[in-house]
């Protein structure tokens, strides 16, 4: 009989967990009625080490807060006064990029032919990008930042994932507004 005792003990781990979910539900119910458990205030508590009960984030309806440092894909920052990208086409990001997915064409003065301190073209192939964040880390002018846009699924890859300067700046605009930068 003793032989099966420890199997029961293992089952008890799961059973306890099962009961815990209901206790947790009831706790939230007494705090704020139905739906309180899935309210925005409850999410950080449920997802912290203190959380009990069902661990699931109801994804499309609620989203896990992304930490400030989280990095997805790079974007370009532009100056609000002039509306021009802050990038000076120094090429640091293109040099430091480990998979070499940044392409920059430096602009030249149409009259003198001298190189200007701005990019004529700026491409990032996010189908190669490995999200390492080196470009943002080493940019001397803080002109390139790592965005937090992750929901980028697409039906096609060549046009959707080769981002040009305009699209890189637009991602920046959106994120810039959100983070207040």
């Amino acid at each position, binding site marked *: 009989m003793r*032989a*099966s005792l*420890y*199997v029961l*003990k*293992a089952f*008890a*781990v*799961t059973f306890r967990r099962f009961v815990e979910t209901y206790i947790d539900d009831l706790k939230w119910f007494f705090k704020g009625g139905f739906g309180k458990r899935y309210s925005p205030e409850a999410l950080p508590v449920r*997802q*912290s*080490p*203190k959380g009990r009960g069902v*661990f699931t984030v109801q994804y499309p309806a609620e989203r896990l807060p*992304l*930490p400030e*440092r*989280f*990095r997805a894909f790079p974007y370009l920052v532009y100056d609000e006064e002039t509306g021009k990208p802050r990038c000076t*086409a120094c*090429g*640091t990001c*293109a*040099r*430091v*990029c*480990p998979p*070499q997915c*940044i*392409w*920059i*064409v*430096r602009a030249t003065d149409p009259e003198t032919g001298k*190189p200007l301190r701005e990019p004529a*073209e700026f*491409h990032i*192939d996010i189908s190669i990008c*490995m*999200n*390492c*964040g*080196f470009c943002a*880390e*080493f940019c001397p002018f803080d002109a390139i930042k*790592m965005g937090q846009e992750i929901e980028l699924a697409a039906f096609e890859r060549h046009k959707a994932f*080769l981002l040009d300067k305009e699209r890189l700046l637009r991602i920046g605009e959106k994120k810039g507004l959100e983070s207040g930068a």
Partner: protein
Amino acid sequence: MAKEVTPEPTNGLTAHLQERFPGAVEPAPEPYQGLIVSRDRLVEVATYLRDELGYSYLSSVTGVDYPEGTNGLPPRFETVYHLFQPTGGPLVLHVHADREDPTVPSLVPVFPSALFQEREAWDLMGIRFEGHPDLRRILLWEGFDGHPLRKDWHEPYYEQEHKPFDSRFPEGHPVPAEERTPLKQNLRYPPGWSPRGWRPMADVWGYGPHDEVAQQKNPAHPVDRVVLNMGPHHPSTHGVLRLLVTLEGETIQKIEPIVGFLHRCHEKIGERNTWLGNMPYTDRLDYVCSMSNNLGYAIAVEKLLDVEVPERAEYIRVIMAEFTRFLNHAVSIGFTGNDLGIYFTAMLYALEERELILDLFEMTAGSRMMCNYMRFGGVAHDMSEEAVALARELAFERLPRFVDKLEAFFTDNELFRARTIGVGVLPPDVAVAYGCTGPLLRGSGVPYDVRRAEPYSIYSEFDFDIVTGTNGDVYDRYLVRVGEMRQSLRILQQALNRLPGGPVIASKPKATLKVPPGEAYGRIEAPKGELGYYIVSDGGTNPYRYHVRAPSFINLAVMNELCRGHLIADVVIILASIDITMGEVDR
């Protein structure tokens, strides 16, 4: 390693060996380390080192290609061996081989741990090892054209010897790599070769050695033997591993891991990358524990750079490495349950803790899995107050509770014990000979841990025990893992209590960094075993040679010893107890 430390010869090791083997041993010229051993007497010297001087553990075997002579040495292939005593630093042996027809005697008869590593050197570098019992290609396939790690071999997308590529700036018009090749694919064939009339080689898939075993019959029990394929698509092979099993009834006669299905050319790409550029690539080696991989690489390069790491950075490194160890062992035990047929339950609990640890990584390093956190001379970002609070909560409250839960689940569970006790027994001498490391070795009762044998970072300041097993079976390996999780928590608690303030990096990291010429072998105790990085610098911005001694890869070589005589149903559980990650096995 089981033996006592043999005292160093009084007149210095080099002089002693030169006396013992006149003309066969000479010190390697600057900036190389160790000794140059003559090719003809390598086996003799290695046997002597193992038997008389206590260098019982061959950690890494690899090849380096020098198409042009360097440092007064002629053009050559070099095989580099790293031997270790139970404590202390490496003894590096260099063996020179002819550039045209590189042949080196095999060390497999002395150190079976060279079994896979010499095959790898043959596969990627084209160095032939005389006397190797099974010298076939391992990561690529039989019939592949060329040996890719040779310096004069270029991949189809070859653009330039080193990154950064000039085509990216200042005239960087985006051109996909496909467009630069005639076939619009990552393909290149030898001149004149055509697929018409061509037939695949008979033994591309490596059935050869098995056919022989399968032909034999046991006179006492004459049944036909069956050769069975497990993988590369199999839910319990932890990735794209293929196991070729010869069975008699249900009993395993021969089992052979066939790897290379995830060979991502890590080392070739690593030699093109800048020094820093390799850091995010190391994340993708053992993708379960990226922080440890970062740490090993940082330590290897720091040996050449000679930088001082600030104290806070060292503490943060230890904290991250130990969280990674906890995470890896939790997931590993969870998967063991999955492979046993407990299905998802244990694994879901483990993955829940993983998510919480990943939250910490994300908060600190910016990414869940591919942290890219360490830099040469420190770490990339400081740990915020919030992150320290989360780490404390995890290390002091949540994770100890989880270990208890895991133990309640498994340790005394009769079903678990019935499946694991006495299964996959690894005797300590076999484990040492095969160069096994990590929980696999310690489960056999050998108290070898790089954190104690050759302390790196600040591990010497922490109080922790080396957990060992007694019988060396799957159950003992499980117990070692659980014990190590508790020890990790002990280290974490000490580190978090003593976490000092101050900077986290010696100086702002430079994008293009030049590393002084030389060679270094940085090794750490990664969760899966000893992770070593062998790097050679020629003083430039890119590694000249970059080799990863992956613990999973070398631990896998012992699979045949572990499984022979067991039932086919035990294969998955034995494999789970070795704990491999294919990203690291195949690199």
